[in-house]
């Protein structure tokens, strides 16, 4: 590992640790470390284990998952704007959540399961489309994603139209804003295995991911089955995103900004940079969640915070690109 990479890793991990500990102390219910080790405050202990810790861990996992997956999408598609949204995961998950809210009683498990399947199904469809398409260019993947995205959006709109405006429509809208407010230990433990399987798979495929960033003709010469490998990696990245999004709702921009920041800071795009972007994502999301719940009277959806950071950054990025050109 280069010295520059090592320094950034150390600093980020330290910051992450500190933010994590501070996050654990922020919230409406007063919880101090001392309370956790004394028996007199049973409620504080329960609040800590069922709400506080799961929420902070979820923000950590979500930040890592979305940013890590985002940097893999960007590498695979060789497109700086590729994010989970572009191949339809997010809109598929939204449509799935809407189905859960409208037709499955809107219980926590129905919405979670149905949005997970929705997100996954959208990507499977997009991948299926590229299989039957004549040219198997990268652009075909992106175009198929855009098409599926549009279809999911249309379905979502139809579902919204038939929803009861006061209850169901509000639930759908609120879901698409993304929030960690309803995370509990049960939800976290349910999705953790899926996310872990996906991360493990992607780590095992790290060499292939780096190879796919190169020209596909050259990679084919090396004996790599480009198309199927790309599909497998995409599915794993999607599994990661869907497992997070199905409990948090949509969290905008984090999957876009963290990978760019990581590349700007480490000045490279190796696998270690992708992992680093995951850590950066966790850090940003932890801070955003602290802002969302700690500094306002009510609670702001975390997407509002990430978008407010993300959009100006995107503009900056565009301006910078122009200058180089």
């Amino acid at each position, binding site marked *: 590992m280069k010295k520059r990479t090592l320094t950034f890793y150390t600093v980020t991990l330290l910051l992450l640790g500190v933010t994590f500990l501070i996050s654990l102390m922020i*919230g*409406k*219910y*007063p919880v101090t470390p001392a309370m956790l080790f004394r028996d007199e405050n*049973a*409620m504080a202990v*329960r*609040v800590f284990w*069922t*709400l*506080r810790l799961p929420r902070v861990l979820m923000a950590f996992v979500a930040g890592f998952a979305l940013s890590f997956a985002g940097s893999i999408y960007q590498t695979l598609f060789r497109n700086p704007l590729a994010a989970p949204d572009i191949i339809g995961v997010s809109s598929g998950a939204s449509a799935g959540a809407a189905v859960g809210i409208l037709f*499955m*009683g809107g*219980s*926590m*498990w*129905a919405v*979670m*399961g*149905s949005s*997970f*399947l929705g997100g*996954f199904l959208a990507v499977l469809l997009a991948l299926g489309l590229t299989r039957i398409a004549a040219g198997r260019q990268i652009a075909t993947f992106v175009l198929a994603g855009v098409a599926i995205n549009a279809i999911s959006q249309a379905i979502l709109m139809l579902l919204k139209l038939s929803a*009861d*405006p*006061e*209850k169901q429509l*509000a*639930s759908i809208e*609120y879901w698409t804003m993304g*929030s960690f*407010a*309803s995370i*509990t230990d049960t939800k976290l433990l*349910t999705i953790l*295995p*899926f996310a872990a*399987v*996906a991360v*493990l*798979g992607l780590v*095992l*495929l790290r060499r292939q991911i780096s190879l796919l960033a190169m020209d596909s003709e050259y990679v084919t010469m090396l*004996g*790599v*089955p480009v198309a*199927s*490998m790309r599909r*497998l990696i995409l*599915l*794993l990245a999607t*599994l990661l995103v869907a497992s997070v999004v199905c409990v948090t709702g949509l969290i905008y921009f984090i999957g876009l900004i963290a990978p760019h920041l990581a590349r700007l800071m480490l000045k490279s795009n190796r696998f270690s940079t992708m992992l680093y972007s995951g850590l950066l994502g966790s850090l940003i999301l932890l801070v955003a969640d602290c802002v969302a719940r700690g500094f306002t*009277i*009510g*609670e702001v959806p975390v997407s509002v915070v990430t978008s407010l950071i993300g959009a100006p950054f995107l503009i900056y990025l565009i301006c910078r690109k122009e200058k180089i050109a």
Partner: protein
Amino acid sequence: MKKMSKLLSLLLAFSMCLSLAACGSGTDTTTTAPDTTPAAETATTEAETEADTTEAEGQYPVTLTDHAGRSVTIEAQPEKIVSGYYISSTLLISLGLEDKMIGIETNAKSRSIYALAAPQLLELPGVGTAKEFDIEGCAALNPDLVIVPLKAKDAAATLEELGITVLVINPENDQLLAETIAMIGTAAGVTDEFTALQAYIDDKNTELAALVQELDKPTIYLGGNSAFLSTSGAQMYQNTLIENAGGTNAAAELTDTYWAEVSYEQLLAWNPEYIILAPAAEYTIESVLSDPKLADLTAIQEGKVYQMPNTLESWDSPIPASILGSLWLASVLHGDVYGQETFEADVTRFYQSFYDVTVDPAQLQ
């Protein structure tokens, strides 16, 4: 290489199976927790039996079945109550329990009845809305009993996990409202108060039914809160209100469970005898009367356009005072048998006895 991708595909397939399994169990959870009537009916019967057996107030523990079908045991008379829904908040006031409330739904300031009947409620910490219930903030208040609407049933489950007693209510119609009154009244140990409130509602309903039984039932178009061209169909609470008051809902053919959009053409075809504007309507009687597209309607030509008063509460929603909505409409439709003065006396008596508020009849004009 091939081996590895095979392994990964297996992993992937395995995780997808897991997800399907998780989904399956999810559906089970939904079916075991029915939202509506059957469980709710048990709630009343249980609540009523409890009420019968507990002559003296405060025979605890009490076990109730709430509107989410959950069985809830209340160990001792609750002294600190959090209400996350305006209907339960007004109900608590009408049962004389406002001093036991330590937390209230966000946006409490928008309800004028709180300021009149229990201004101290406006100072209480907000615990969020059904969409965004503040679980930690609620737990921090250390309540003995939390009441939330059915929409917040997930939050209820989490609060229960924390060891907090929660009742889920869903007062969507007269029957469910009666169950809610019994449920909360029993839980709080105020048997006399809730029986008196329910008896008043029942008596007035019977009285009204007898009054309008033999009369003609004029057709009514109810203009919705957000727009004049939105109205309530047969499934909505407003339909019951119209029927109780001795009217016929012009839009009864609509099956929507929420305010439905209608067209001018549709309205002209219905040609209602009366036009009633919802209490919180964002447009005025004048704007309806002066709309050239409506000029041919009988109701417009005869000037029979009225708006339900909104000075105290919106009587068109299932709240304890909703009986007054039926009474008001009866006074408009059948003024000869139930006049404005009788109505004003009824309103004054209701708010005096249940909210300890003196109403100025001039406010109801």
